[in-house]
């Protein structure tokens, strides 16, 4: 594994929230987090609820700003610091390199499930007919009934929306994938599909950082663990 390139390099990342309209209370989350992830690794974040796992994942995506430190992502062969990059650079890194799989689908009015799944393929220049075919195959694999494909997912159940979201993320796995509780409302059969998809993305060389509530899923996908609890203790002590 060590001959694989580093895809994520986190250096001295700290995060605290300052709530200006609530007495400027400062909430430390973690301090001085360091780690790296190579291509083909699945790093599972461990730690109790509230330890800051989701915040760390959002910082890696550029969705939260770290209070200090660097988050380097390998993009087009060179490292880009997400903490200081221009918005247009971050969007470009997200378009081609950095994917985020969340628990929840953000529904857009009038956009069908199939189009949601096709979108990342089109954004990467895949031919529309091929994109449709691959999107359909992925939805089928996640057992989403074909009668739903042409509908906007606003009326879907939580589990159906989640599967649309997963299909969108895995239809063309990004070189770096950040995964937040992907199986939270899935049944055992679909959970197994997700585990397989993660394993396939990894074998294709994706570097993956994930949070998995389900212990059996966690055990099956992890190649390494990072317990962020002690970064939290450092933040509380500071």
């Amino acid at each position: 594994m060590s001959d694989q390139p580093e895809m994520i390099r986190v250096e001295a990342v700290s995060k605290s929230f300052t709530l200006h309209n609530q007495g400027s209370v400062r909430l430390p989350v973690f301090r001085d987090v360091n780690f790296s992830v190579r291509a083909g690794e699945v790093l599972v974040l461990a730690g109790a609820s509230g330890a800051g796992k989701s915040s760390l994942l959002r910082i890696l995506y550029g969705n939260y700003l770290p209070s200090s430190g660097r988050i380097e992502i390998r993009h087009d062969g060179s490292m880009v610091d997400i903490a200081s990059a221009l918005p247009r650079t971050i969007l470009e890194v997200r378009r081609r390199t950095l994917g985020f799989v969340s628990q929840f689908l953000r529904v857009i009015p009038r956009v069908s499930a199939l189009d949601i799944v096709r979108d990342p393929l089109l954004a990467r220049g895949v031919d529309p007919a091929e994109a449709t075919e691959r999107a359909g195959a992925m939805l089928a694999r996640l057992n989403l009934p074909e009668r739903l494909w042409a509908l906007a997912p606003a009326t879907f159940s939580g589990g159906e929306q989640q599967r649309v979201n997963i299909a969108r993320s895995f239809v063309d796995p990004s070189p770096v994938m950040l995964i937040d509780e992907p199986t939270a409302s899935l049944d055992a059969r679909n959970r197994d599909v997700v585990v397989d998809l993660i394993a396939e993305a990894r074998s294709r060389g994706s570097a993956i950082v994930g949070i998995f509530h389900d212990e059996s899923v966690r055990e099956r996908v992890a190649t390494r663990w990072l317990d962020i609890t002690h970064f939290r203790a450092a933040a509380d002590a500071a």
Partner: protein
Amino acid sequence: MNALVSPTALQGTLRPILSARSVSRFYGERIGCAEVSFDLWPGEVLGIVGESGSGKSTLLRCLSGIDRPDAGEVLFEATPGADFLEIFDLPEQDRRHLMRTAWGIVHQNPRDGLRMDVSAGGNVGERLMDRGDRHYGRIREAATEWLTRVEIEAARIDDRPRQFSGGMQQRLQIARVLVSNPRLVFMDEPTGGLDVSVQARLLDLLRVLVRDLGLAAIIVTHDLAVARLLTDRLMVMKDGRVVEAGLTDQVLDDPQHAYTQLLTSAVLAV
């Protein structure tokens, strides 16, 4: 976070299309907007958010050539690779021409952007004639195509805008703006004054058009959900000044400034 990452290819573009440098405008002693600087890159969609009176509309009027700033510069690259133009150094007539051809302005009230006594087809076709097109058949064909693209039935091409609903008028205005293939579009509260269901349709249409055409756009809105759906990056304005700027989902999900925290906490869910 954005469910749909904007796919617009931003790489390989070396220069901004628009550059604002310390743009300020005052109304007597009162600040309209002060010291606003930013670069907008081809294909990028910038949102300007803030409450009424924050200066966002004043700024948009300066950026789009309507009002001359009291200080600062607005530089624009009219065609790819061309020299930057300081738009307020241009003679009035040239600036007006630029506004009609290289730019588009979508007004909050469609009445400000449409000619209400001219047919729908005429409203769209007029922009092509401004650009020098004279072939009636081609102009009508292009008008028909654009009406269809904004989901107005081709059969309504000879109807006047006053016979249209508010949502249709707004879509017609968008067709009128986009038909001349502008490089940059300014939008002032494009969904303001419309019913929520009508807004959703318009938003989806704008989202698709901006993406397919690779437009650069500046959108002023007080609606953070609109900003999240349509924009790549945000500037938050308060009392005429930019208090926070950054990637749209980052500014909305992890706001740093007290005022942005107040704005984002005042809505139920964006």
